[in-house]
C-alpha cells in the first residue's frame, strides 16, 4: 500500500516558483494498476517522481509499505530505487553511448553483469520486439523502439513498484497495447504495483485504479 498524505511540491523554474502539488492525499492499493490522469501541469509526473524517490516533497509524507520515504537515509533511498522501483520516463532517458542491451542492463552495471542477467535482458528485448536491434544505440532506434528499451530496463529487475510516465506516448496503438500487456503480466506474475501517468485513457480497464489530478490536487478517485 502506498499512502500519500498532504503532499506538496514546489520547485523553481527560472525566477518563478512552480507549485506542482498542493496538498495531495490519496492511497494506491498494492498489486494493482493505477492510472494517474489529468491535464498538463496538474502534477502527474511530479507525483510519480516523488513515489520513486527521485525527488523529495516540499511537505507531506509518502509511505510505501509502512516506510516513510522522507525518513529514509540517502543510502536507503538508493537501495529503494535500485531494488523496488522500475521507472519509465516520458522521454525514455536512455544513455546514448550504450546499445539496447547495455541500456537495459544499466541498473546492474555497478554490480557487474552476469551472463544470466545479460541473457535475461536479451530475452526481454526480444519479447518487446527488439530482437534484431540489440546492438543498436538510441540514435539508431525510433522513438517507439527507445521507449520499449526503457520499459525493458524498468522490467528487468522485476520491481515491486513500476512507475511509468506516458509509457506509450511515442508508440503506435499495437505497440502501446503490447506494453500495457507486459505491465499487466508483471503485475500478475510478481504482484507488482503499477502506476502509470497517461493522457490516453484507452488502456484503462474496469479493475484499474484511476487518480485524476487537477491543479496539484486530487479531483476524483
Amino acid at each position, binding site marked *: 500500500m502506498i499512502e500519500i498524505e498532504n503532499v506538496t511540491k514546489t*520547485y523553481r523554474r527560472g525566477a518563478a516558483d512552480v507549485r506542482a502539488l498542493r496538498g495531495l492525499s490519496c492511497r494506491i492499493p498494492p498489486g494493482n494498476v493505477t492510472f494517474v490522469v489529468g491535464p498538463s501541469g496538474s502534477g502527474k509526473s511530479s507525483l510519480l*517522481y516523488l513515489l*520513486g524517490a*527521485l*525527488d*523529495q516533497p516540499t511537505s507531506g509524507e509518502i509511505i510505501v509499505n509502512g516506510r516513510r520515504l522522507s525518513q529514509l537515509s*540517502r*543510502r536507503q533511498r*538508493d*537501495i529503494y*530505487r*535500485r*531494488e523496488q*522501483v522500475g*521507472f519509465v*520516463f516520458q522521454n525514455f*532517458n*536512455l*544513455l*546514448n*553511448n*550504450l546499445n539496447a542491451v*547495455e541500456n537495459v542492463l*544499466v*541498473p546492474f*552495471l*555497478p554490480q*557487474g553483469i552476469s551472463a544470466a542477467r545479460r541473457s535475461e535482458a536479451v530475452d526481454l528485448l526480444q519479447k518487446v520486439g527488439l530482437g534484431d536491434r540489440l546492438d543498436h544505440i538510441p540514435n539508431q532506434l525510433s522513438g517507439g523502439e527507445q521507449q520499449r528499451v526503457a520499459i525493458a*530496463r524498468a522490467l528487468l*529487475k522485476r520491481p515491486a513498484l513500476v512507475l511509468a510516465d506516458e509509457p506509450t506516448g511515442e508508440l503506435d496503438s499495437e505497440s502501446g497495447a503490447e506494453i500495457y500487456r507486459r505491465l499487466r503480466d508483471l503485475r500478475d506474475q510478481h504482484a507488482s504495483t503499477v502506476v502509470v501517468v497517461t493522457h490516453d485513457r484507452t488502456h484503462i480497464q474496469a479493475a484499474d485504479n484511476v487518480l485524476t489530478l487537477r491543479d496539484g490536487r486530487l479531483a476524483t478517485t
Partner: protein
Amino acid sequence: MFRFSLKNLFSRPVRTLLALCGLTVAIAGMVGLFSVADGIESSVAATFGKVPGLTVMQPGAPIPLFSRIPAVWGAEIARLPGVHVVHPEVWTRAHLIEGKPSISPPRFLFGSDLAVAEKLRYSVYREGLKEGRILTAADRGTQHALISRAIADQFKKEVGQTLRVDGRDLEVVGVYECNSLFLDVAIILDIELVRRMGRVGDDSVCNFYVEPDAQVDRDDLIERIKDLFRGRALETWQPTLDALVPNSGPDSNEKPKTIAAQAFLSAISEASKPIKQAASDDDPIEVRSSDDWAREFKRFSADLDIFLLLMTGIGVSIAFVGIVNTMLMSVTERFIEFGILKANGWSNGDVLRLIAFESALLGICGGLVGCLFGWLATLAINAHWPTRIHLYAGPRLLLWSVCFSTVLGVLAGLYPAIRASRMMPMDAIRRG
C-alpha cells in the same frame, strides 16, 4: 563499470583529448624538469662510483681545483699503514683552447705524477682509454696529453695531432672516455707542466688521491690520515680567483678578453664558496671518500630540486585547474546521465566511482603519454648536447610521474563527482 567508463571517454573524444593534453603537457614538463636533477645525481653516482679512493685536500675547498696543500705531506700519508699509493694531483682551468675561451663546458688541466700513477691498481682514465695510449713515466717533462673523447670531438683532434691550450701545443697521445660529465672534462698532463701552467708552486699540490690497500676500512684510514696532521697549521680555503685567472705561458697575452668570460669567472668564484667546513679547527686537511663527494653534490643539487619543484608546482597547478575545469564541464554536461543512473538505482558511491574511474583513466593515460614525451625529450636533448648536459628520466621518476598523474586526475575529478553524486535524480535531470 570499467568498460562503461571507457565508453564514456571515447564517446566524448574532444573533451577527453583536451583533458589528456593538459595532463600530458604537465607531466612531460615535470619529467623534463626533474630529469635535470636526476641527471646530476646519476652522473655523480656514476662518476664517484668509478673513483674508489680517498681525496685529501684543503679544508673547505669545494673541489680540488681550489685546494692547496703542502706537497711533502704526501710522503707522510704514504707511510701510514693501509695506504697503497698516494698520487699527487694538480688541477687548473684550461682558459684558451685552440684560441677560444673554454667556458661552457669548462675544461681542466689535470697534472698527474706519472710515475706514481703507474702504481695505481685502478685509474678511471686508464680504464676509459679508447685510442692511443695512457701517459707513463716516460712522458715526464713532455707536453704529451691524454684528452677525452668530448674534447677530441669538440676540437676535431686525433691521436698524433696537437691541441693548443693556453699558449702551449700539447701533443695528443691518447683519447679516453668515461661517459661522465664530471670526468670527461680533463686534459691529463705531466704534473710539472700543469704546475707551470697553473702557477702552482713546487711545494704545493691541489690534492692527494689515496688508494687504500684492499682490505682496509676506509673510515679508519680517514681517521688515521686526519690524526696524522691534526694540530698542524694550514689556512682554511677562502674563495679566490687565483685558480681561475689566466696563467702564464709562452702566450700569456692570450687571455680571455670578453666581458662574458670575466663574468663567468666571477660567478664561478661566488658559486664556489666552501660547501663544507673542516671537521674541526685542528684539522688542516679534509679527507673525502666517494660517498662524501656524492653527499656534497646531493646537498648542492637539493637547492636545484627546490627550484625544480617550484617550477613543476606552477606547471602542475595550471594543469590541475585545467583538468578540474575540463572535468567540471564534462560532469556538468552529463547531469542528465547521472540523474538517469541514479533513477535506475545507482548509489552516490556508484556515480562517484564512475567519475573517479574516468578521471583515473585520464590520469594514467595522460601520465603515460606525458612520461613518454618527457623521456623522449631527454633522449633527444642528451643526443643533441652530449657534452653539455645529461638528463636522466629513470624508472623511479617515470613511475612516480604516472602515479602522480593518476592521483592528479582522480583529485581533479573528485569535486565535480561529489557535486554530481549528491543531487537528487530529478534535480540532476532538470539541471541538465
